[in-house]
């Protein structure tokens, strides 16, 4: 009997979860009119989420660019000139690798941190304490993190784009017979400004998705240390799936 009902219970709790997420985001958006009161907390979060993520973004983007360069050169047959490497690296980084690598890396670095932080605050009654001191925890804890995510993700994607292309150029120049002139000739040939804008649209969407999912799981954490661990794991898993899903949906919508 229990086996019969468990899928139904799972479906109900899935929709309950979506409902709770929507309600949480609604109260977060409602607090936008009080943004000036919480701007200092948002700036703190921008430093934590954005500035402190720059080294890991540079590292991963640089290597992604290098790999793209090597693999495209490997796949080109003799009748495709090597200077096309620049176009492949440019398009791959701007359209896909920059936003995607940033999203996936920050899911681990930022999403997990937010979920663990808010989850710990929940299980140690710090969120209750905030409420008892007349603070709105949604405005105080969630609003600054989501704003910081929306603002900082595009900046991080710009950094990732730059270092991804730089990594591609570096490899092409030093390990293949492609001069800088040829690499950037290829890059310019297929460059469309819209591709860069599209990457930034993705960045805003990923920034919102990752921070809001992390805030949701952290804020509604139940139980002790086990609950915090569960919230963190769910944040990473759900954020990764959401990013891949959003990547597809946005590509269909805008390309």
């Amino acid at each position: 009997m229990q086996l019969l009902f468990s899928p139904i219970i799972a479906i109900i709790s899935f929709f309950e979860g979506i409902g709770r997420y929507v309600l949480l985001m609604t109260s977060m958006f409602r607090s936008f009119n009080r943004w000036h009161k919480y701007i200092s907390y948002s700036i703190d979060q921008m430093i934590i989420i954005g500035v402190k993520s720059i080294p890991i973004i540079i590292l991963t983007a640089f290597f992604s660019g290098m790999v793209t360069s090597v693999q495209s050169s490997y796949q080109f047959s003799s009748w495709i000139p090597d200077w096309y490497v620049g176009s492949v690296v440019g398009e791959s980084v701007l359209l896909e690798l920059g936003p995607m690598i940033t999203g996936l890396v920050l899911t681990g670095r930022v999403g997990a941190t937010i979920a663990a932080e808010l989850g710990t605050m929940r299980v140690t009654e710090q969120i209750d304490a905030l409420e008892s001191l007349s603070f709105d925890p949604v405005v105080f804890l969630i609003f600054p993190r989501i704003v910081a995510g929306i603002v900082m993700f595009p900046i991080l994607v710009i950094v990732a784009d730059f270092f991804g292309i730089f990594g591609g150029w570096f490899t092409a120049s030093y390990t293949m017979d492609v001069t800088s002139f040829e690499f950037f000739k290829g890059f310019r040939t297929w460059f469309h400004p819209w591709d860069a804008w599209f990457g930034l649209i993705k960045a805003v969407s990923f920034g919102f998705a990752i921070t809001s999912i992390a805030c949701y799981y952290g804020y509604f954490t139940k139980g002790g240390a086990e609950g915090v661990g569960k919230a963190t794991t769910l944040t990473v898993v759900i954020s990764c799936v959401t990013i891949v899903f959003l990547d597809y949906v946005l590509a269909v919508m805008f390309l």
Partner: protein
Amino acid sequence: MIKVRDLYKSFDGNKVLKGVNFSIETGEAVAIIGKSGSGKSVLLKHINGLLKPDSGEIWVDNKLVNTLSFRKLQNIRAKMGMVFQAGALFDSLTVGENIGLALRRLTKLRENEVLERVQSSLIDVDLQGTENLMPAELSGGMKKRVGIARAIAIKPDFLLYDEPTTGLDPVMTDIINRLIVKFQKINSITSIIVTHEMRTVFDVSNRIIMLHNGKVQFDGTSEEIKNCNDLAVRQFITGDSSLVC
């Protein structure tokens, strides 16, 4: 004045409160006792609106707490300090920032006045000079005292204590008990102390409410509870597990 009427609350089908009724007059110090899991903390969190009841009413200063909007609830909470079981201090803030947080956000005090209030609150709990320490650097007893300092800094009319002495050594328990009595007597604060430590109960309260099976099992003075023949009450105050109730 606080009134609780027919309060029911359950979590995932587990009925915790099954029709709780009582009133607390201004200036009273009331201990709420009961076994672990009897719903004491749940009851306390209903009083300042942290939890919503399944049914029933909670009145504070003639305002029905469970139907108030968030803004109006904030006005009630501004008059109500709460001391949490493990202190619930904000990890990322210093002791001084923990105490000053609500003052800076909710009052129109100038920065020097906030700092003065923080200092005087720390002196009240005998923790002067600790304002720059982080919560991780404090002992359990110190955390509880900072929690009390944070609650009294807003100069509340009501103070809610959730297990203020649980897990502390006898000397620290006595220090906390004296603090509770001091704030209740000097400032005429209405105090509700949730505890299962009988020493705290007899030291700080002038009235005791015992929760058992989700209902009020006993409501009376310290003398009355000592002479009470109810088995559940006797078992609790004597700690005699051989008594069957």
